[in-house]
């Protein structure tokens, strides 16, 4: 059983126009997705830019107004209640935290690191100043930084260090779920390795769950247990990491996987031929995999660890 359940989540933005500025149509940024988050697991959310992956992350933490659908936290409905002061919603706010993509703009430039990291603690725990300092030092140690960092300002750190501070802040309130939105896409390879290692260590220590949003399929493969592939605001395929990477069913997933550059220059030609073959298959068969409005079909189970959005009446529909 998941402790957080997202049910049929939809986020639509109105398009206004005409003389009276009436609502003409909607942009369906997220159009009916279901997600269950279990303790200690990492869920990879992959898609190209504009697929709606960030919108899902933001809506779970309460930064986006949800059009329809539900978010249940331990069975309690917390949909669109992020600002509520009631205890059960406050618990939810404490237990779900976020790491942002751009570490420079997600840390207040006027605050010292100590204040940045202690803010979530001040909000949710009653700690004395000494206890707070002790905890901040502990958190900095977890992400491999020393005490000196406490009295510095965000601009005094490198990108990788700032991202680690972002991780420390997210962990400060002892959350159960951290939504990581492209946490390493602005970082260099060796620094990325550092941040990913820390994230995994913290996960083991605190039994954290991650919703790991990224367009980098290599990073997602490294981090995740389960993966969902998004396209046009819907999941085209969802399942365990091994199922998705080794047995992709949907043409969109196949296309995405074949586009990852291979690290072996000797197989370059073969890789390219394979990619072009999949690309052609995608153009030829695209219609089979989307309904007449271009919408992704509903997910149907292939096995218990693997769901695919196939046409119930078309190819593969009778699997």
């Amino acid at each position, binding site marked *: 059983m998941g402790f957080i359940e997202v049910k049929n989540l939809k986020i639509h933005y109105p398009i206004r126009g005409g003389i009276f500025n009436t609502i003409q149509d909607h942009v369906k940024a997220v159009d009916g997705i279901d997600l269950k988050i279990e303790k200690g697991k990492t869920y990879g959310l992959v898609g190209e830019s504009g697929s709606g992956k960030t919108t899902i992350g933001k809506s779970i933490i309460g930064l986006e107004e949800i059009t329809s659908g539900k978010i249940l936290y331990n069975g309690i409905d917390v949909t669109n209640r992020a600002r509520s002061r009631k205890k059960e919603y406050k618990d939810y706010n404490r237990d779900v935290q976020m790491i942002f993509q751009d570490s420079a703009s997600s840390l207040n430039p006027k605050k010292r690191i100590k204040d940045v990291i202690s803010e979530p603690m001040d909000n949710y725990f009653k700690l004395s100043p000494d206890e707070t300092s002790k905890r901040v030092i502990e958190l900095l140690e977890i992400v491999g930084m020393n005490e000196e960092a406490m009295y510095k300002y965000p601009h005094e750190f490198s990108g990788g260090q700032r991202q680690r501070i972002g991780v420390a802040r997210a962990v400060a309130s002892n959350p159960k779920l951290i939504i990581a939105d492209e946490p390493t896409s602005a970082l260099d390879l060796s620094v990325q390795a550092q941040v990913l290692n820390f994230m995994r260590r913290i996960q083991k220590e605190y039994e954290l769950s991650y919703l790991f949003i990224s367009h980098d399929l290599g990073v997602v*493969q490294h981090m995740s247990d389960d993966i969902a592939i998004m396209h046009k605001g819907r999941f085209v395929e969802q399942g365990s990491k091994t199922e998705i990477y080794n047995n992709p069913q949907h043409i969109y997933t196949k296309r995405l996987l074949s586009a990852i*550059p291979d690290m072996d220059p000797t197989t370059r030609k073969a890789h390219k031929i394979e*990619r072009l073959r999949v690309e052609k298959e995608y153009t030829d068969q695209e219609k089979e995999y989307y309904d007449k409005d271009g919408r992704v079909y509903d997910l149907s189970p292939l096995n218990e660890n693997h769901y695919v959005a196939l046409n119930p009446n078309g190819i593969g529909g009778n699997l």
Partner: protein
Amino acid sequence: MAIERPLLEINHLETGFRITDDYYNAVDDVSLTLEKNEILAIVGESGCGKSTLATSIMGLHDAKNTQIKGEVIYNDINLLELNENLYNGIRGNDIGMIFQDPLGSLNPLMTIHDQIAETLVYHSSMNSQQRTARVLELLNQVGIPKPERVMKQYPHELSGGMRQRVVIAIALANKPPIIIADEPTTALDVTIQAQILDLMNDIQDETGSGIILITHDLGVVAATADRVAVMYAGQIVEEAPVEELFANPKHPYTRSLLNSIPHELEDDDDELHVIQGTVPSLQNLPRTGDRFAPRIPWIPAEAHEENPVLHEISPGHKVRCTCWKHFHFEGEDE
């Protein structure tokens, strides 16, 4: 007949930036050659000087605060000695440049047609009909659908991948023998990235241009390059044909980088390799000794050369310093 010289020859290039009253070299004694019909990749992390190298070749630095030494030889002339007027004749005509951020390198107030035609106005004697014909031809070449329509649009009306194609079209407009591409696919999705890299390979096949590809993405290197130069702290630390570099990396930095690529985990305690410490800032960069030594402190100081130079260890494979012979990852046996 004289021995044919490489298309572009960079000799002992140093680019120093002024900080307070001193110049600090961001590119330090770099020598490279680029042949016809070759993709040379320059790899390194941010701050290693790879983009500065590109802008130095193009002569895009403000002379007041920059000090450039060495030679960039093209067609038997040293580009660095040219005056601004002559240099302008080279830029865009002999050397095309593709920048990382396609939105930032296009003028938002000009149509696609005008942006591409602009470089033709400077470097060719075409009349306006010929220019439009060439613009259409270029848009077709870079794989833009409905070029007649796109030509009349503005940059904001196009997607990121389409914009990058336009930037490539501008770089190609005068059929330059040399193209410098600075992180051409970094801002793009993987499927678009694959298309753009294919496009660059096709262009190379069709025109025989030499391409300098600057990137931090080793996947991109493996997929496109013929030769690779790895840069660290302003210097080239390893240079090799692409297959050799991936099969037989020698320099500790190259090996560390390859080891920190995210991969599927063997077991739960498996961790990615992390390079200790950080890249020193330009001002604090040690100017003597092995610059990478502080980041592999478990390797004894005697293993490093006093003033490391590039050694050719097999044909075309050069490695700086001899410390690679003694290098092992921390915790591993030598």
